[in-house]
């Protein structure tokens, strides 16, 4: 058992999958000798060669489309989009093609494809290096969407994604790449895609979050615990398919829900959780269903004070928990 950063766990998962299965290859911008701009593929080009860790042209739609064609042909591509902000040129290939392939062929052609992309703000990235794009994709049946918040889950979920017969979008909190650390076993384990994880048990308020916000929710829960408020943190991990049972199970216990995400608030992922709770958890409701999210502006501003104004953080989460607990 070694302590690793989130990004080291991601690199380890890819390393192990490349070693395990010759059908696995990686492509994306700068993934080769450079090891990725964030260093997620560090050392993999050297170890596995340029035929398996393939620097792509600077063109995102073809990174994904090449992956689709190769996946349909039986390989197991891992496609890296350098920043989630740059995934939109590939939107049609993901949403119109990869997501629909299995359905449109009535189960004949499947697309075992992983698309990795760093997402999220708080790193001085401005409008085009800070975006959270999950809600665009969690709307699309046929896709799976995964966002880990711990190194343990990152390794296990990424390995599960590589082995999944469906297209999986794997979003990685870039702010958490080196800020989040944790123990990662050396063995070949899988964290199944689907189930959420109760990151911390509590009685008073359920906090639903993923990625960096799940990490922050744990810190916020510590802060309010000193004041006698017991917050349960549900780390969703897999956003699509959604783990309704885990969400409703926690809500039945607390009757109060705070949903935290760093995307824009309106029509964000939290809206669906709120809808599930309102519909299927109505008789357990003991307060307003609250969302803490980014404001509805077209991006995370670059300048530090504006960026921090945009981003949820442990203090803001703790304040929202206190307010709900007191309701």
């Amino acid at each position, binding site marked *: 058992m070694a302590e690793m950063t989130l990004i080291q766990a991601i690199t380890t998962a890819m390393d192990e999958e490349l070693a395990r299965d*010759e059908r696995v290859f990686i492509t994306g911008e700068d993934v080769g000798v450079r090891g990725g701009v964030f260093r997620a593929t560090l050392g993999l080009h050297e170890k596995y060669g340029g*035929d398996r860790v393939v620097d792509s042209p600077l063109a995102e739609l*073809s990174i994904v*489309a090449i992956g689709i064609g190769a996946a349909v*042909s039986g390989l197991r591509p891992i496609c890296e989009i350098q920043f989630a902000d740059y995934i939109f040129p590939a939107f049609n290939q993901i949403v119109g093609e990869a997501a629909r392939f299995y*359905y449109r062929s*009535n189960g004949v052609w499947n697309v075992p494809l992983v698309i990795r992309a760093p997402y999220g703000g708080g790193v001085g990235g401005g409008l085009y290096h800070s975006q959270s794009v999950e809600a665009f994709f969690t709307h699309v049946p046929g896709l799976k969407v995964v966002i880990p918040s711990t190194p343990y889950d990152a390794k296990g979920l990424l390995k599960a994604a590589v082995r999944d*017969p469906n297209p999986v979008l794997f979003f990685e909190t870039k702010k958490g790449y080196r800020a989040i650390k944790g123990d990662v076993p050396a063995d070949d384990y899988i964290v199944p895609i689907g189930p959420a994880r109760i990151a911390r048990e509590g009685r008073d308020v359920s906090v639903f979050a993923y990625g960096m916000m799940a990490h922050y929710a744990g810190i916020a829960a510590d802060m309010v615990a000193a004041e006698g408020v017991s917050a349960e943190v549900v780390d969703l991990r897999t956003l699509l398919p959604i783990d309704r049972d885990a969400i409703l199970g926690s809500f039945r216990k607390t009757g109060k829900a705070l949903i935290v995400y760093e995307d824009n608030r309106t029509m964000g992922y939290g809206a669906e959780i709120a809808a599930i709770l309102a519909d299927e958890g109505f008789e357990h409701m003991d307060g307003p269903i609250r969302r803490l999210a980014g404001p509805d502006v077209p991006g995370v501003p670059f300048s530090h004070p504006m960026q921090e104004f945009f981003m949820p953080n442990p203090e803001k989460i703790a304040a929202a928990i206190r307010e709900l607990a007191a309701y």
Partner: protein
Amino acid sequence: MEFVTASPGTTTVLAADTLVEMYQVMVLSRRLDERVWVLHRQGRIAFHISAIGHEACQVAAAYAINRGVDYVYPYYRDLTLSLALGFTPLDFLLGVFGKAGEPTSGARQMPSHFSSRALGLVSGSSSVATQVPQAAGAAFAIQYRQKRGLQRPDDNSQPRLALTCLGEGSTSQGEWYEGMNWAGVHRLPFICLVQNNHYAISVPYDHQSATPNVADRAPMFGVHGAIVDGNDVLASYQVLREAVERAYRGEGATLVEAKTYRPVPHSSDDDDRSYRPREEVEAWKKKDPILRFGQRLMDEGILTEAMIADIDANARQQVETALREAENAPYPAPEAALGAVYAQE
């Protein structure tokens, strides 16, 4: 760029029985296609998109590759190509009627979205040119397997190239440029067959591109380019076969532009009288690929008028038999709409 129009001597290229088989497929495709137009005009079906006029370059493409083994990423006009690979009139007509048992999509897609794992035909969408970079990905996978020793380069039981087809209008899409670019960068075993029928629905080619020919753009990708008379079976076969052998030898991709024409509207929902003169259509009808190929085979003593009449009668018979079966087939259960969203391991 050379414009290949002169047909090579027939028997030096393909055996006589193969040539007859190709002619039979073209006639079957035409009779099936015409029958479906009639069904639409009778109000019995909702939609048809036609391959009429494109039969020559399509049948040539099918016979140039390792049929049923090499990957084909088709587009909606590839009825003849699909039939040549082994798709049947019944397969097609079940799709036209949206009936249960439709083999490409379980009748989820509109007609003419050809797909069959057994035939190497890969499912496509209606969004044009999306299949091009995917086909490049399939070619990338072939090259990957060969480089890694997972597949012998001469193993003809495995796909050794990916062929994709599209219209000339679709070459304006970024997807086409990005797919062609990969094919060039990696010297992929890849053939892009552009069936240039001069109109993207109503928009003429000079509104798509300032390059006089689609294949003029081959050098910018570092791939081989060729232009061929797409209404000439043997000229098309010659050019496509060269592209196939180039791919098999590991010498990279080819962009083939087949000049052709669709003498019918874009689809059953289109009226081409609004955008092109009748004289132009009539002039192209004189260059009909089936008439030309039939005449050629008669000139060479391979077919007679009586044999041609037999082939035609046989095609009509096949279409009518399949039509009865498709019309009598049940519709899918409504709840079938819910299945096959996610693959299970």
